């Protein structure tokens, strides 16, 4: 496997808070990479740095070999590097299908294409993906009226609609009914294997991430604490301590 995201020596502070200090890590193309760490350890900050949400203080971030740390959010998204939000962001006033159609991959569209209507194939793809996440029955409902977990699933489907190369998911199982989590793990894995999307996932739920990832990075206090296979991470005393210390 080749490296698709290469983070080297990235630091980011908010005023006096050092949210990320000298972080280096790699995401392998085609795989599922996990990012764990106690609350406030800087996971979301690292995601934000990668997708260009804020400028970084130091370091380099490469996507498919290209330096992206100075690019704005939209340009990075159009390279095929997409993220979902921890707080979940969907267009609440619109229904599920409309949310999906808005998420059409604009990077594959020319300007004049935007003055066309969505094709039958676009609608079919929207329906297929809504079905994939289990929201087909609710597709015509105003999405703001869906439960938090369903909104999370919708946001996941919207990301798939965008046909990204890499998808960064910020706590995809948070707020999801525990009985539905196994189904979601299965779908995340299928997004990786069937749609060929490289996944980079922040996850609090250890069982979930151990189950999916082929490599896991662990942050603590803004620094890279450990990395390795799920087995290695599980047995790493520093990781255990960081989590115990945080609770």
């Amino acid at each position, binding site marked *: 496997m080749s490296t698709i995201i290469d983070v080297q020596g990235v630091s980011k502070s908010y005023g006096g808070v050092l949210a990320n200090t000298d972080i280096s890590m790699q995401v392998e193309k085609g795989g599922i990479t996990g990012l764990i760490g106690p609350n406030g350890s800087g996971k979301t900050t690292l995601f934000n740095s990668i997708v260009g949400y804020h400028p970084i203080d130091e370091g380099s971030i490469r996507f498919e070999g290209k330096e992206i740390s100075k690019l704005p959010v939209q340009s990075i998204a159009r390279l095929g590097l997409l993220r979902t939000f921890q707080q979940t962001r969907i267009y609440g006033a619109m229904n599920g299908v409309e949310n999906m159609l808005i998420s059409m991959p604009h990077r594959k569209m020319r300007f004049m294409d935007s003055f066309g*209507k969505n094709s039958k194939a676009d609608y079919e793809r929207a329906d297929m993906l809504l079905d994939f996440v289990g929201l087909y029955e609710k597709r015509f*409902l105003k999405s703001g009226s869906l439960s938090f977990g369903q909104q999370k699933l919708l946001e996941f489907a919207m990301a798939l609609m965008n046909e990204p190369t890499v998808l960064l998911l910020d706590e995809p199982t948070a707020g999801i009914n525990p009985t539905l989590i196994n189904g979601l793990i299965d779908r995340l894995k299928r997004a990786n294997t069937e749609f060929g999307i490289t996944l980079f996932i922040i996850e609090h739920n250890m069982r979930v991430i151990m189950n999916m990832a082929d490599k896991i990075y662990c942050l603590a206090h803004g620094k890279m604490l450990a990395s390795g296979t799920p087995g290695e991470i599980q047995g790493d005393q520093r990781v255990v301590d960081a989590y115990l210390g945080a609770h």
Partner: protein
Amino acid sequence: MKKTIFYVLLLIFITAAPFMFPAFRTQLATLWLMIVVSMTWDMTGGQMGYNSLGNIFFYGTGMYVAAIICIGLVHDVGIYNDASRSEIMKFTDTQYFVGAIVGIIGAGIFCAITAVIIGYVTFGLRGPYFAIGTLGVAIAAGELVANWEWVGGGQGIALPVYPGDLDNGKLFFYFLFAVSGVVLFIFLKWLYGTRFGAAVNAIRDDEEKAEAMGIHTLRYKLTMWALAAFFVGIVGGISAFQLIHFEPLETAYQTINLGIFMVVCVLLGGKGTLWGPIVGAILFHVIKEVTWNYLLGWQWVALGALIVVTVVYFQDGLMGWLMHKKPEWFGVRIEKKESVGEAS
């Protein structure tokens, strides 16, 4: 089918109105002007979430550009606008009509280009800052033009009078406005159904999310504003010929009158809907005409009260209120609260 009949009847009524109510031709023309500026205001304010207080800039600029083109095709603009000029500068009928049509279209194109340039700077501003920034542009433009002698300075410009019968002139301007309004309506009905329309709504509902999904937000914002500016420039140009004489601060760049009225019309009728601005403009125009005729001396107070009531109690406007009461009429469906779903 029902819809087709409705639109055909509407079109017949629009055509017949100035003949049915010949005494109200000028008011009806002004109503069309209100409808057009309201619909264009809603393109950015309602559909895209960018509340501009400076759209009047395009109205004033449209007036000036149309007038200058019409004059410049025949005469020297500086001499024509010189207040101390004593020679009479005439226009033949052909010169008038060619000048008017070329001027009006030129005004639209010029305003669209200016919108891209101004938007490039102001679209970096969000919320109230965008509103104030655009208002600043309109105010500054009025002052600049008022001090520019080549375009008549504070005196403004006096255009030639419509050649021929006065009543025909009124009809001519009514139909110029009406055609702009109908074309704009058809255009927006189509535009709001395209991917472009959806992307613009996405910018309104959550611009950060739209950016994160790779939507070309700036490009769409500039395009939308340029399209709006095009139509405002057109009706500005028509107004220039209809009013014959206009001056910079009170007529062209009238930030407190038309500049605010268009916003009130949209709020009254309902933002972000196709019909809201039209309904709002009609309501507002009727209320305004009535207060101006029957509450003389108090008309501004009445109008101010209307604005306050609309903004405070009735923000979603008539269409918004209907949508809330009867969501199914608009195809909106709400998740029933069975509360067996997921916990959050």
